[in-house]
């Protein structure tokens, strides 16, 4: 039975109930941690008339780390995600993204689903991290389930269509090193003005077999940096070399001017962030 606190907030206990409610009521909006949604008035938007809280739905809660895949429920908080993937080498970048975003109290409530579902939020940290992991987003409708690759998911408008619910993401596990570098104007605590997240497939000798690089916050929507990925494939995994390669390729970005930083700055720091993401992915084994 779903707890109906009143006509403004519904708290279903199962995915089934949630999907039924969403299908029957086109004006109901999912709410997870509320850290984005509750600030709607500050953005000059009204709060939704009716909300459906996803926090009590078990199916959306956990992180399953299996041999071949990792499945992360949409309701998992940034902090819980960071704890769950701590020590899993191939997911290091995702952990860094989850652990360094926002501030500690927000990380405890803000969810993976909220981070991915929010359009018009260029600085989301988990988005580039999951892009670099080539993750699949799972979107459930009353009668079917979609699995949408991140790149395509980000192109959709809205990302999660009315009547459906983002239930989680799936990441295929590979032998890879991953790292996340975000640049804030203070030491921490603000939105990153530029983010580089990357995953590297490595050969024994340290040659890059495959590189996936995602860039966040620079343009209105995070995206993969395919030119750099191609340039890196086959080269030695070395932070300085990668930064050099990045330097010659930044012209492909059209940085967005924002209150916190001008567009030119966001692109200009990308090579440095590539270097830092490499260093984050390949901590010196002493």
């Amino acid at each position, binding site marked *: 039975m779903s707890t109906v606190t009143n006509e403004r907030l519904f708290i279903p206990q199962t995915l089934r109930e949630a999907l039924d409610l969403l299908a029957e009521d086109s004006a109901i909006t999912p709410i997870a941690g509320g850290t984005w949604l509750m600030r709607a008035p500050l953005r000059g938007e009204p709060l939704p008339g009716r909300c459906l809280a996803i926090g009590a739905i078990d199916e959306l809660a956990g992180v399953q780390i299996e041999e071949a895949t990792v499945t992360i429920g949409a309701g998992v908080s940034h902090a819980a995600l960071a704890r769950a993937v701590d020590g899993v080498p191939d997911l290091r970048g995702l952990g860094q993204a989850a652990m360094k975003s926002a501030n500690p109290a927000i990380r405890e409530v803000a969810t993976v689903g909220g981070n991915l579902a929010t359009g018009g939020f260029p600085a989301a940290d988990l988005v580039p991290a999951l892009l670099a992991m080539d993750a699949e987003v799972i979107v459930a409708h009353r009668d079917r389930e979609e699995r949408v690759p991140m790149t395509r998911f980000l192109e959709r408008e809205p990302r999660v269509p009315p009547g459906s619910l983002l239930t989680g993401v799936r990441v295929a596990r590979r032998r890879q090193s991953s790292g996340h570098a975000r640049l804030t*104007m203070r030491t921490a605590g603000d939105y990153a003005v530029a983010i580089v997240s990357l995953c590297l497939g490595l050969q024994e000798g340290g040659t890059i077999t495959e590189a996936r690089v995602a860039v966040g916050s620079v343009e209105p929507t995070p995206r993969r940096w395919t030119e750099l990925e191609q340039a890196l494939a086959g080269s030695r995994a070395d932070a300085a070399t990668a930064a050099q390669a990045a330097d010659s390729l930044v012209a492909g970005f059209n940085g967005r001017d924002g209150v916190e930083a001008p567009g030119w*700055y966001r692109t200009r720091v990308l*090579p440095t962030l590539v270097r830092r993401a490499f260093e984050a992915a390949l901590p010196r084994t002493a």
Partner: protein
Amino acid sequence: MTAPVIGSDLPRRDAEDKLRGRTRYAMDSGRPGMLHAALRRADQPAARIRRLDVTAARRMPGVRAVVTAADAPGRYGIAVADHPLFAIDTIRYNGEPVAAVAAETLEQARAAADAILLELEPLPANLTMAESLASGAREIHPDWRDYQELVAGGSRGGNVAWEATVIRGDTDAAFARDDVTVVESEFVAGRQNQAPLEPRACVATYEDGRFVIETSTQVPWAVRNATANLLGVNVADVRVTAPAVGGGFGLKFEMALEPFAALLARASGRPVKLVNRREEEMLTALCRENADIRIRSAVSRDGEIVAREATVLMDCGAYGGEQPFLTTMTAHTLGANYRLGAVRLVSRAVYTNTAPTGAFRACNGAYNTFALERHTDEICAAIGMDPVEFRRRNVVGDGSMGATGQIFEGDVLGPMLERMETLRAGAAGGLPAGDRRLFGRATVVGTWFVFVGPSAATVNINPDGSVTLVTAGVEIGSGSMMQALPQIVSHSLGVPPESVVVRAADTDSAGFDIGVGGGRTTVSLGAASTAACDDARRKLLEVAADLLETAPEDLVLEDGHVGIVGVPDQRISIAQVAAHAQLVTGPISGSGSFTGRGTGSLPGCAAGHMIEALDIPIFTVHECDVAVDADTGHVQILAYRVVQDVGRAINPRAIHGQIQGGVAQGLGYALHEEVTIGADGCIRQRGLETYRLPLAQDVVPVQAELFEGAPSIGPLGAKGAGEIPILNVAAAVACAVANATGKRVRQIPLTPPRVLGLITGMEPQPNLSHVGSSWRDNVLDDPDELLARSPVHDTATPS
């Protein structure tokens, strides 16, 4: 004998309740039947009001009162009465209030405020001082001539709200000498929002025909006067009280929301609460003004400053507010620190179609010191002299003449520079191997002052031996009301500080006070309290003399007792004396007052200045070490050192706390806190997401030393210690960044994009084409007439 209370680290009485969350700030206030208020603000920077219709709003659910300009026809100001409560006919900044609503709930009040019909016809907006000063620029106050001048002496005209000038000696001759190097620099400083965590907030009621206002303010008396003027009632019909204030930093040094709440309270007959949302605080705070500065100096080969000219433009926004007063400070901040030959300064408050600016801790001084110290380093570079050596040679000392001709007493800055050298000993002079960033260090000096001025105090000696101190001082967080004042009273009356009760400000019970700010609490309120204690003490001793059958001259006050000198075991408690007095003379109380002595300038040197010379100058030396990341433009503060002149430290631990806090705010000003104005005239940083206050990871522990012994007319030789800690921070950081990068740093804040732009050459240099290179180009009056009016002083050689 108990330990001396002066110089001791008395804990704060208010700390425990603050730690338990029990302290009630104005924003926490509630009354039975209280209504909530909201303001309707204009959303354009410059416009004519075509229509303002509140009829629909009045009919909205829960609405109990709506008020507009028709209810408050007056204008207020500090030097010039140019500011109406609500915009009358004309909108002059984006965010200007046009109406206020009170309703049963906050949501209802906001909904009704939104429902007010406001039709605007846009006018061309001047969003920058360059636009306001351009020839043919629209006058923001076409009626400026008709405004009442509350203070005389400044030049005004067009978009120049106020102009103050200093003329001492012949700079033209000095610049023409062929044995001098002329160094010219331009600087631009951004706004800084005070951003105390408690927004401006108040609750007003209308009782027995009087307005009673509880408010978060630093200036209860000023609020009382301005509210009465705007509402057209007698000053005596307004009562202002101030509970603990959740931070002020100058934001609350002017009237703010009080008259709105007062009008609504009268109109509704109910208590009305009005609290700014953070967004309103961001868009309409009386920020530290942005400034454009040009300085030109003629320096001899051995580093003597033969002449200096400077122009400082201060953006006062749509209304003058504090700025006409603050133009005064240029003489004492930019004109300070060093011995000067001839000097000519002009300091102008310029109207723009932006939110009015105001006072922020070390107002005017923080950017003028940045400009002066960077300029000084540019001089050193031009003549090839070590910057510390240059300062050692040139800082003002005993007998030196200040910009307006005052003669300083005592060698203070010189010995303080030496003290800094000791403090620095052992600090690493670079970065560890492998750190690729750039290292920079700078040592800068600064001059500030105590804003003396009128204060009154009463002390009541109660029959239980406790003492009540009644002033209009407000505890804004600095602790002066909780630490320094009780310590001063305790010292004067020989009672333990714990038995001194400090009354919260109430204009019905305390005499006039100019306000808490300007580092004046300890000095002015302290001096008034000392005088009140002297008065009470005299009465107390007379009664005690009777009881002890001896002469008052033979008595001492100590440990809560009156004793006879030399007869240690013959004493009676102050409680006994006070109780006895109640029967024979009536209860003992004392009253006292204080105001500055009004040190003058050299006659004719300073025009338009509200402070011609400094009664109590304060000096400081700051030093910082930075690491600059040339890849991202990030500046990391590695170490920060301060030597501060305190006169006499009444509570050293509290002063150290002020230094740490002030430096942190200064680091925000120097590095992260940026206010920019969009094309719509609106401040773009609408909240704490984009307005970046320093966080715990951004601040370093400040190594500080208190320098005692410099002369001061303050009580017990004290000086104000709370304002000056922020004065030099932007200067120290900017000079250190310049040293690290080898670039001329001309603009603050030094955000990472700005620093990276500087390093890569992508940051355009500030364009100050609206500020003429010569002092002559920047005055309203005919410069030759001004010069003719100023007497010729033979001061061209620095002494």
